[in-house]
């Protein structure tokens, strides 16, 4: 089974303080540490596990700029057979629909039995997978937490719903699934693994190759545009306990006694 995984490079919230630029137009991007979006890493692992059983190739694709190539290499170091960078000035500042349109155009240049995305990008909207499926007229399921290949070009999948319950569905191939974090344990990638794939060429496709997407890409075609970032309005704020650690602990113990947290 040939599998395509869509992945995005995002600022890593565990490694950075995310600050807004003075004019609100963007976040401060100097010195940001980026990584592959968390859910996408789980999606690549899921694809590798399926391909290990059924045979077939795993390809990782991203829509972005030159700087995004590093995540393709990272996922190739995990075991993906290839990476493709979809890059063009015309794709810049697209909304989720524009990104999905570029991915759709790419999917139609090849043949994939299964397409995986992450549930949501840290700076995204949990939309690209569902949009891509609708554009391709493929069946779709979101929040997938297990995948089993069954006979006759079908999958049996679990999707997570409220309260940790699971909905089980049968879904025909080809289809698009958005993968939820926790579905597996993504394998570790060391520096050595990255070095091993450093010289593999990564093909680039742009507007001439993916022309049918152009009606939806770019800022001009975006139906949804970010006007500005801002700091949230003051809400009910916590009373911050001040003082040395010992003083804070004394205060907390008194409060917990009063509230029934300590007897």
């Amino acid at each position, binding site marked *: 089974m040939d599998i395509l995984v869509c992945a995005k490079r995002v600022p890593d*919230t*565990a490694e950075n*303080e*995310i600050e807004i630029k003075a004019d609100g137009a963007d976040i401060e991007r100097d010195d940001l540490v980026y990584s592959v979006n968390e859910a996408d890493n789980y999606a690549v692992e899921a694809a590798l596990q399926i391909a290990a059983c059924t045979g077939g190739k795993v390809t990782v694709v991203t829509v972005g700029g030159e700087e995004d190539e590093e995540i393709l290499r990272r996922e190739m170091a995990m075991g993906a057979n290839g990476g493709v960078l979809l890059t063009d000035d015309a794709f810049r500042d697209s909304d989720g*629909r524009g990104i999905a349109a570029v991915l759709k155009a790419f999917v139609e240049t090849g043949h994939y039995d299964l397409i995986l995305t992450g549930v949501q990008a*840290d*700076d995204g*909207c*949990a*939309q690209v997978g*569902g*949009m891509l*499926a*609708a554009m391709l007229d493929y*069946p779709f*399921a*979101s*929040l997938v937490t297990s995948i089993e290949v069954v006979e006759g070009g079908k999958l049996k999948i679990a*999707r*997570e719903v*409220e*309260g*940790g*319950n*699971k*909905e*089980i*569905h*049968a*879904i025909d191939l080809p289809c698009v699934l*958005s993968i939820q*974090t*926790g579905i597996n344990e993504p394998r570790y990638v060391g520096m050595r693994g990255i070095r091993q794939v450093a010289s593999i060429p990564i093909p680039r496709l742009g507007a001439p190759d993916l022309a049918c997407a152009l009606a939806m890409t770019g800022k001009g075609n975006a*139906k*949804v*545009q*970010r*006007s500005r*970032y*801002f700091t*949230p309005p003051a*809400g*009910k704020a*916590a*009373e*911050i*306990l001040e003082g040395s*650690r*010992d003083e804070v*602990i*004394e205060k*907390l*113990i008194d*409060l*917990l006694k009063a*509230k*029934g*947290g*300590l*007897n």
Partner: protein
Amino acid sequence: MPRIFAYVVHNSGVPDDTAAEMPAAARRIDPGQSPVAIVTGWGAELDQVCESLRATYGEIWKIAREPLAHPNAELVRQALVRVVPAGSIVLVPHAHFGTDLSPGLAIKLDAAYVPDVVDMEGVEGRWLKAVRQEFGGLIWARVRCDISTGAVLNIRPGAFRAADGAAANGRVVDRSADVGTLESRRRYLETIAAESGDIDITREPVLVSVGRGIGEQENIAVAEDLAEAMGAAVSCSRPVVDAKWMDKSRQVGSSGKTVRPKVYIACGISGSFQHLAGLKGNPFLVAINKNLKAPIFRVADVGIVDDILEFLPAMAERVREETAVGGKTRRKS
């Protein structure tokens, strides 16, 4: 101004809380409009839902079809595409079903899509102004959305306060015959209930809850130690379960358990809405986090800005002294 519809999610014959919130959201788009509810399903449960919606909606479109008896967003999407007029605004609760339904619905309606909307600020020309959050609620963004071909807006549960207005005494319109054949290459098979774990965190009065800030599996012992000293139980946020550091039965949140403790101590938890959705009953909420900007400090009663790996052991030690002293005093009296 386009017509506004509200897709109502329901369970066991009862509309979800968001059913009462969507009219409030609609008023933030157009103060003059009360939205039309759309409900899909099958059987007596669906009729019960329609009946109870008559209190909050002036008009309710009922789509009763057997294939809609079980959750399958693919089929619901087909049905909606056939009845929703072009150019409409459709509100959907931003939860597990909405995530499945809305992106594809927006494409098929050729409408704009904005997920997880926490506020709206009216319409200017063809642009609707909405507020969202990014990076787990760390920063907020104003977005504008071109509604000239309609929009699908996923509404954050709890973000819009339900108005307790006068009874609408709505009328139910049966649109079941207008959706044609419903077919999907995805078929619902069954729902499997979450497994229960060694302890039931939903019954615990005091929870020490750990998040990704705990860093690694070995460090969970630090929280367990404090919990033991306090006579409390340990719960956690989702990344801790994803990493397989704790059992799923300990997870608090929309895809985990809903807990109602008296006291909740959030340690290295940022305070995402999915996590807070599992925290009910207005507990005394203590947040310990090294980042003063963490959204959890916006909802906590008491905040402590510190490193949990240092704070929790010190706290455990102090609690043990306290309970030992307390024990002595009790024996004396």
